[in-house]
């Protein structure tokens, strides 16, 4: 099975500052990968390296098995940048026509179909559309290309809740239709937990965690019990985040075995709790120890 994105020792430096360093990861194809992390963690840099807008300072990135700047890669990859660059004086129809000229195999019907259904006026100038409608035009341009891999940099930041939902609906519908791989960065954990089946967590210019969300949720638990006995838990399992009162210990753990101590109650963790726990512990970089990624469950169409 091919990987969507594979990096080895990838790094990018601006002067003395590393925007991304020692990044080695392998994102399976056919997945929707969420890229999370605080601002400045290196998410945009990673995406720009993957689409060839930036050249690496160290290491290598391969996209769909080939270098990002190879012509055959470019025809298979689409990217929606954070500021969604569009020509404001073009009408929607002109914008899609431009998409057709620039991309052989561009599917006008797919591109305009979603927009028409959402009531985006095709004869209007792009600059006069709402933020949500402009985002839809950018998405239509990207999916009209019929890419095998679509990367999006915070596509729904700045959108109102309805526009955000509509954007994610169209995106997921296209995934169902084509089976394309998607990588998108976002701070909105609700969107991530609905849409993603793979998660990459970044902090301080490094990859902190990279795994299938189902595996992540299966191995992490929140365990509560007496502080005096906490060692029975901390000695067996990896503690990601701990808070103690004089009597009670509240631990988010990566369990190595079922928690059997009757003094402790264990419950499943939500994706939000998991992400927040890792984000608040940037040094809890235990990504390499997580068991090998399970072979991806295929979308059978």
């Amino acid at each position: 099975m091919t990987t969507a994105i594979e990096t080895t020792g990838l790094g990018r430096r601006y002067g003395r500052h590393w925007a991304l360093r020692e990044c080695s990861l392998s994102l399976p194809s056919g997945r929707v990968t969420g890229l999370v992390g605080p601002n400045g963690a290196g998410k945009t840099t990673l995406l720009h390296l993957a689409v060839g807008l930036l050249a690496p300072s160290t290491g290598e990135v391969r996209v769909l098995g080939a270098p990002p700047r190879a012509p055959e890669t470019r025809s298979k990859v689409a990217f929606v940048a954070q500021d969604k660059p569009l020509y404001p004086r073009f009408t929607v129809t002109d914008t899609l026509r431009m998409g057709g000229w620039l991309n052989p195999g561009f599917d006008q019907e797919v591109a305009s179909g979603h927009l028409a259904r959402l009531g985006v006026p095709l004869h209007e100038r792009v600059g006069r559309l709402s933020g949500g409608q402009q985002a839809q035009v950018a998405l239509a341009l990207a999916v009209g290309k019929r890419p095998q891999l679509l990367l999006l940099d915070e596509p729904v930041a700045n959108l109102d809740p309805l526009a955000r939902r509509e954007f994610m609906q169209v995106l997921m519908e296209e995934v169902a239709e084509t089976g394309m791989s998607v990588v998108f960065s976002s701070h909105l954990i609700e969107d991530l937990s609905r849409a993603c089946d793979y998660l990459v967590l970044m902090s301080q210019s490094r990859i902190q965690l990279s795994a299938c969300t189902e595996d992540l949720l299966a191995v992490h638990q929140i365990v509560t019990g007496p502080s005096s006995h906490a060692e029975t838990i901390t000695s067996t399992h990896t503690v990601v985040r701990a808070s103690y009162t004089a009597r009670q210990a509240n631990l988010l753990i990566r369990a190595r075995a079922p928690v059997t101590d009757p003094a402790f109650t264990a419950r499943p963790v939500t994706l939000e709790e998991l992400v927040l726990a890792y984000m608040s512990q940037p040094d809890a970089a235990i990504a390499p120890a997580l068991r090998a990624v399970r072979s991806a469950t295929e979308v059978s169409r």
Partner: protein
Amino acid sequence: MVPVIEFQLDPSSGVATYLQLAQQVRQALRLGLLQVGDQLPTAREVVAKLAINPNTVLKAYRELERERLVGARPGQGTFVLRSLPGPGSVAVAGFSRELNAWITKARAAGFSPDDIEALYRTAMRACFSEGAA
């Protein structure tokens, strides 16, 4: 064609999305909202509404396939193969009566609704984790 049922998600439930979808199909079968031969919404229809990952829908359907409640017809979709006993059925009524009697007894013994729910949850966990081991 308009799908027969429409899924809804409860993000606060803490229940995995694919399990919520499978539960809603079972519930629709129990209530007779879904009948043998009905087609379940396609993955595309579901994700176009809920904005969830299509694999989640397929996972829910596979779970229902394993239970032989639904079957996939290649190129056509997923269809209901059999129904489930509803709240009016004899089997369900028996268990429901016993559970009512048990709750009444627990309440008479001084347990609060919270206590009773905690008891029930612990028992469920114990029984099902034994079953899984």
